[in-house]
């Protein structure tokens, strides 16, 4: 059960930008950021998380995804981060944990770098954004959709769809999502300077990685955690690039019960 509102959020140096935000539950606040697969790739997880632990989960649709308009002023990952910091200010939220998957993890990392006291922690789930020599992010734009599914899931058959069978409206949204990914992240899905900037972070950070991720491999995930002081890394079995979609219960447990996790079990 969710409610969706459109907020007009001030953007530095430009007019306000509109952002659609689905909201689930009430209580401890979480900002949940989707990746290139769009808001539906996190919606089920948001609903389950809010119901399981009586928390409030806010799921914005990044402008340009899901058929929404993208203003000219919001065209980069840092711009999205600033937009969401503005949203948290507008909602006057405190002690917010930002959770992001894939592209959403990159946005979460950029939000952390803004050092807003409203944000108390970040959870990066199979995030992109850094460059790791020898471990490139798979080039989404040169893969067939069949290859994307095969690389994204531990058990792809549960999730595979044929885009050609989608109704025209859904195909238009998928094309819009693809264009938005290209705008925000480019084909490399990295910022060469990001890994160095992360070394300044002091924010509690949990890095979760699907063991079967074929889009961004496990060593890339370990490098992400290593780049952030005090970050903890946890490998999630039997799941791929979108663990919150493929194995949501496992992700909820990894976050909620993280005080009980023996992170040394995931170091090499």
């Amino acid at each position, binding site marked *: 059960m969710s409610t969706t509102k459109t907020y007009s959020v001030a953007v530095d140096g430009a007019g306000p930008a509109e952002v659609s935000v689905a909201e689930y539950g009430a209580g401890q606040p979480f900002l949940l950021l989707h990746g290139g697969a769009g808001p539906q790739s996190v919606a089920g997880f948001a609903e389950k998380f809010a119901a399981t632990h009586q928390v409030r989960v806010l799921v914005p649709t990044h402008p340009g995804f899901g058929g929404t308009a993208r203003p000219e002023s919001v065209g980069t990952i840092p711009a999205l981060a600033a937009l969401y910091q503005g949203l948290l200010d507008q909602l006057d939220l405190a002690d917010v944990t930002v959770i992001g998957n894939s592209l959403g993890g990159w946005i979460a990392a950029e939000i952390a770098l803004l050092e*807003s*006291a409203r944000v*108390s*922690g970040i959870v990066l789930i199979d995030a992109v954004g850094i460059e790791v020599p020898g471990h490139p992010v798979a080039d989404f734009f040169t893969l067939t959709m069949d290859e994307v599914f095969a690389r994204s899931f531990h058990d792809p058959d549960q999730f595979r769809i044929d885009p050609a069978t989608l109704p025209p409206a859904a195909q238009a949204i998928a094309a819009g999502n693809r264009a938005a990914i290209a705008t925000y992240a480019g084909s490399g899905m990295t910022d060469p300077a990001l890994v160095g900037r992360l070394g300044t972070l002091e924010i509690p950070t*949990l890095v979760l990685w699907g063991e079967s991720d074929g889009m961004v491999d496990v060593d890339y995930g370990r490098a992400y955690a290593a780049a952030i002081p005090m970050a903890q890394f946890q490998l999630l079995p039997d799941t791929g690039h979108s663990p919150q979609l493929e194995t949501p219960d496992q992700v909820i447990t990894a976050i909620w019960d*993280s*005080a009980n996790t023996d992170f040394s079990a995931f170091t090499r």
Partner: protein
Amino acid sequence: MSKTAVTRITHSCHLIEIGGRTFLTDPWFSTRPGYYQGEPIAVAIPDLPKLDGVLISHEHYDHCDLDAFAAYRDRSVPLFVAETVVSTARRHGFTNVTALAPWEQAEVGGVSITAAPGKHGVYEVTFVLRAGSDAVYFAGDTMLIPELADIPKRLGHISLALLPTNGLHIRPANNMQVVMNADEAAELTAILKPELAIPHHYTFTKGFLGDRLITHSDKNPLHFQDASRTLAPETSVRIVEPGIRIEL
């Protein structure tokens, strides 16, 4: 004669009135990602009274928020600090900074300020303020260490003790304890035998994720009150909300 009194501002930040003078302890007036008071900040910097001195136990942000406190209207206010705080205090424009090592003493307007030992994740000192027969012990966020038993022997009777109680542990550092817990604070209360003890440093939180990944602490001050009933029954323990002034 003016009364000895304490107003908790937040966390370990107090206003102490003693001997007609007013002192501030461990200033903390802002928040950062992963550092939250967990309770209100009862007095804003512009609303602080004229201070006769400021005591700073160590350089951690939640005890030594000089970025914020530099906005105080008089940076010639005397600061009495752990030696590790001196350079940062001067860098923030404070011109009257005195380092006190354990058992070293200074004096402001008839109030003696004596540093006492401390032990934490970094170098720390604690402080005793005395005017006449009244003495206030400010324990910062120290661990309980044997040297603290020397306080009444060397500095005489303590009237009021301000003690940390959350037993903070740092999970990534092999779950190392860095602050005394409720039972240890009650044990120290039994040693100091003050008329009044007030717990502090217990609502601190690193936020939802930080409390899971980085720190582990006891946020319930009633544990200290309960333990003191057994170990130090002659001391009155008061749990004080920020902004409430308590007279001795």
